[in-house]
């Protein structure tokens, strides 16, 4: 990643590494934020001791889907209603490959195939949209239509003719024969599903911990940090410039179509990863992942949390899904609608950026807050 950061003037390695994750395109560039971040990660690590880790792992998996929309819509301005297309492609690809090659190595390859499948789906759809001159709301309409087309298509795959090798797509009945998630090759592999590990924890005694929960947590934290580095890089600044004004960004010599396509593919691969983990966790996938309701959920998570905030996408996904699962039924749908309406009317930038703004306004300004003589290592000031 290229920056115009000044040469290292005695900065520690930690400061230089930290600078990669900070900038005007992310919330939280202070010491307080990083302390809070570490506390939150520690709390999530400890959560299985006191809460339902199996249920919570679903929220972590779906947070990856939320992040995929945040980076595509929030940071590049492409409102995709079709993230679930790539989510479903990832899940179905994982299911088909893992059923056909159910060795640990085959299942590991199936995970990669699912991620690549999501990325390829996004590459094909994105290429025709962005290089075909489709912009703005028409992208939203096309991606929504793609979702509905896939739902209709997958729903009619119940017949035996819709079998790929050993894997029957199953129509509305879905694919129930997905093998348990194992990563690695041969003896050097580990089963992440239904393989609780007994661990002795001070104060709790011996507890059984779900390895899938920790896999999802590691992937989510890694993805969040990776995306923070991306959106604060040169490329991330160009992405944000595209979001703000495409024509102007072209006049700086940027290939806007390519930037949108690359980010769309990245978003597709991330959604694919989320779909893989979703199918692996449920040991099942069916066409409900392509329904209109499921397609709407990422848009609601990201709108409520704050589409220009990676952190907002994660917090809102976890909170909304927790409430949705807890309430259940029609009441959950009413709650979702009210939440979306309320956010659009009163907090159009989302809840997390609003909270961040309140914290900043109420925090005493440091004496050298805007001193030009103390430039940030990445030449970026806090937002």
């Amino acid at each position, binding site marked *: 990643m290229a920056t115009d950061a000044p040469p290292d003037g005695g900065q520690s390695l930690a400061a230089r590494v930290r600078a990669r994750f900070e900038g005007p395109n992310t919330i939280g560039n202070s010491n307080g934020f990083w302390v809070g971040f570490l506390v939150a990660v520690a709390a999530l690590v400890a959560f299985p001791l006191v809460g339902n880790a199996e249920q919570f792992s679903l929220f972590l998996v779906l947070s990856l889907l939320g992040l995929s929309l945040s980076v595509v819509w929030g940071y590049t301005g492409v409102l995709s209603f079709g993230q679930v297309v790539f989510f479903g492609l990832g899940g179905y690809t994982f299911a088909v490959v893992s059923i056909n090659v159910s060795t640990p190595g085959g299942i590991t390859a199936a995970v990669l195939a699912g991620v690549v499948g999501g990325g390829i789906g996004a590459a094909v759809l994105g290429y025709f949209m962005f290089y075909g001159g489709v912009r703005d709301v028409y992208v939203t309409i096309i991606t929504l239509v793609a979702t509905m087309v896939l739902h209709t298509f997958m729903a009619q795959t119940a017949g035996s003719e819709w079998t790929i090798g050993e894997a029957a797509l199953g129509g509305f009945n879905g694919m129930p024969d997905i093998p348990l998630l194992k990563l690695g090759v041969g003896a050097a592999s580990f089963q992440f599903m239904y393989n609780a590990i007994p661990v002795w924890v001070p104060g709790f005694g011996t507890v059984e911990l779900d390895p899938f929960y920790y896999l999802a947590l590691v992937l989510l934290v890694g993805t969040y940090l990776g995306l923070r580095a991306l959106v604060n890089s040169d490329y991330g600044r160009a992405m944000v410039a595209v979001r703000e004004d495409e024509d102007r960004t072209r*006049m700086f010599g940027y290939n806007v179509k390519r930037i949108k396509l690359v980010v769309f593919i990245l978003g597709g691969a991330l959604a694919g990863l989320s779909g893989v983990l979703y199918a692996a966790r449920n040991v099942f996938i069916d066409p409900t992942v392509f329904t209109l309701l499921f397609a709407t959920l990422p848009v609601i998570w990201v709108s409520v949390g704050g589409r220009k905030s990676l952190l907002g996408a994660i917090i809102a996904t976890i909170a909304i899904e927790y409430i949705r699962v807890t309430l259940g039924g029609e009441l959950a749908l009413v709650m979702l609608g009210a939440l979306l309406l309320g956010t659009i009317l009163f907090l159009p930038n989302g809840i997390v950026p609003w909270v961040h703004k309140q914290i900043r306004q109420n925090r005493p300004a440091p004496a050298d807050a805007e001193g030009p003589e103390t430039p940030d290592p990445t030449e970026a000031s806090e937002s």
Partner: protein
Amino acid sequence: MSESETEPESRPLGPNVRQTAAEMATGDRTDTLLQTDGLVKRFGGFTATDDVDFGVAEGELRCLIGPNGAGKSTLLKLVTGTYEASEGHIYYDGHDITDLEPHERVQRGISMKFQVPSVYGDLSVRENARLPIQRFADGAERRERVDRAIEAAGLTGYEHVDASALSHGQQQQLEIGMAASLEPDLLLLDEPVAGLDVAEREAIAERVTRLNEEEGIAFVVIEHDTDFVASIADEVTVLHNGEIFLEGPIDEVKADPAVQRIYLGEEE
């Protein structure tokens, strides 16, 4: 081979044509930087520019004037590739660029500042200035170029201020600085002094003149204010109903009764 790469048709050399397409193809009269050849842009049934042959020499500073709806902004957006031409060709530095993407035209040396300033308000002045420069410069060179761009825009001391907090005139200066930081050979400015006070207009005029004279950047400037035009340019092109109406020195153009009529809306 695309249509634009075929041998261009030879056209008569009119008063608005610096160089015919045929001459462009043979490399004659190489002082011509930009030449449009029969450029037409239609929006549905409306023709915004009609058979426009517009030329700019290397290092020239030319103003483009005309009443609202004359096709001035459309012509510039055709040159940058923001709009695709319905007919005709655009030659730049001896090459047909009609089919090039906008970013490819920028990489060849064309830059533009749009009419409405749209600096990235959430970013600081320095972060704004870095955006065009980060594409091609790195490390110390980048820092130096960003520093220079900020200094040239008269915004030293404002580096860490959010761009949205700048005055309208400062935002215009920042925009011009960002466009100029690409070191273009041709810079297109769409109404750079609209809404500015006298002092800010003078500052922009001085900036444009300096970039033109010291760095040799050719300019096409759209402007309604004829006093501003007179302060920066000798030659003016008048556009009317999508066609080139008149070209010549600003004093002659201002005194032309027909030009006065079209500005007052009395013609046709």
